[in-house]
């Protein structure tokens, strides 16, 4: 049984990891370029968050081996995490209204 588990966990080669690393560096480079070009805030935020989520997914899938684990591990951990993070957005609408409610602004 232990041999069987060990076999499951050896995933990816040095070449794959190097490719993932290069992809992460390129995406970081694009992010820094966006900051240099002073892209409008909303487009900038969307692009940065999009790239960050892709980078996080690459790290989790390849570096943290989740791509090579059983699907049940992913299903136990991640839907709950994403749901809880999305829940934290609940008051964002109120937060954006606060500046307009201040007298004199």
């Amino acid at each position, binding site marked *: 049984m232990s041999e069987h588990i060990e076999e499951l966990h050896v995933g990816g080669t040095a070449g794959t990891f190097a490719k993932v690393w290069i992809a992460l*560096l390129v995406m970081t480079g694009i992010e820094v370029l966006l900051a240099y070009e002073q892209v409008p805030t909303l487009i900038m935020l969307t692009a940065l968050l999009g790239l960050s989520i892709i980078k996080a997914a690459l790290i989790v899938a390849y570096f943290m081996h989740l791509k090579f684990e059983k699907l049940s591990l992913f299903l136990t951990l991640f839907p709950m995490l994403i749901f809880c993070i999305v829940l934290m957005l609940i008051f964002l609408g109120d937060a954006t209204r*606060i500046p307009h409610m201040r007298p004199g602004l």
Partner: protein
Amino acid sequence: MSSQSSVAPSLWEGGGSPYATNSKKFGMWLFIISDSLTFSAMLFAYTYSRVTNPDWPKPFDFSPAIIFATVMTFCLLSSSLTMVMAVHAMNHGDRKATVRWILATMVGGAAFVVLHLSEWMKLINVEGVTPFKNPWGVPLFGGTFFALTGLHMTHVICGLIYLTIVATGIARGRFKAEDVEVSGLYWHFVDLVWMFIFPLVYLMSARVG
């Protein structure tokens, strides 16, 4: 795999581990998930403070502050690559190479901490930023910035201590491949958190020219 499962005892009779993983690794995953929520909460605290204050400061000049932070990101990303190589080497039973790769990882992590601390020192001593006041107006900037980056730096320092213990153990012939893999999970998580702090805190507050 399917040919083996027909021979192995049924999952429903407790014949298999539901995640096909050992308990150390599953424990680390649970810690990582709960720690992600802590960091998410802090990033949301930063975001909410920023959204409610339209005059939020943009204290990071593209040169040198953003370039400095980019170098820090490079150190952390590269240390993740060397960590994955350490896990890879240990899976192949090469203890010497594992120790070397872990040491390389620690160099990357230590470089990150040194650069980050020098950036903090510049903000505190030259610009006069503290958790309670700063020269640009909104006092919450200092509080959220130091709390968020400070918690992350604490994680990196804990990771360096953790890796020292693992590397020493491996060199002395203790620990198994799974122990290196579990320490790797922690290290990649620290890298992953920085992938959100760097764009949201630094790049969104970049000042060019």
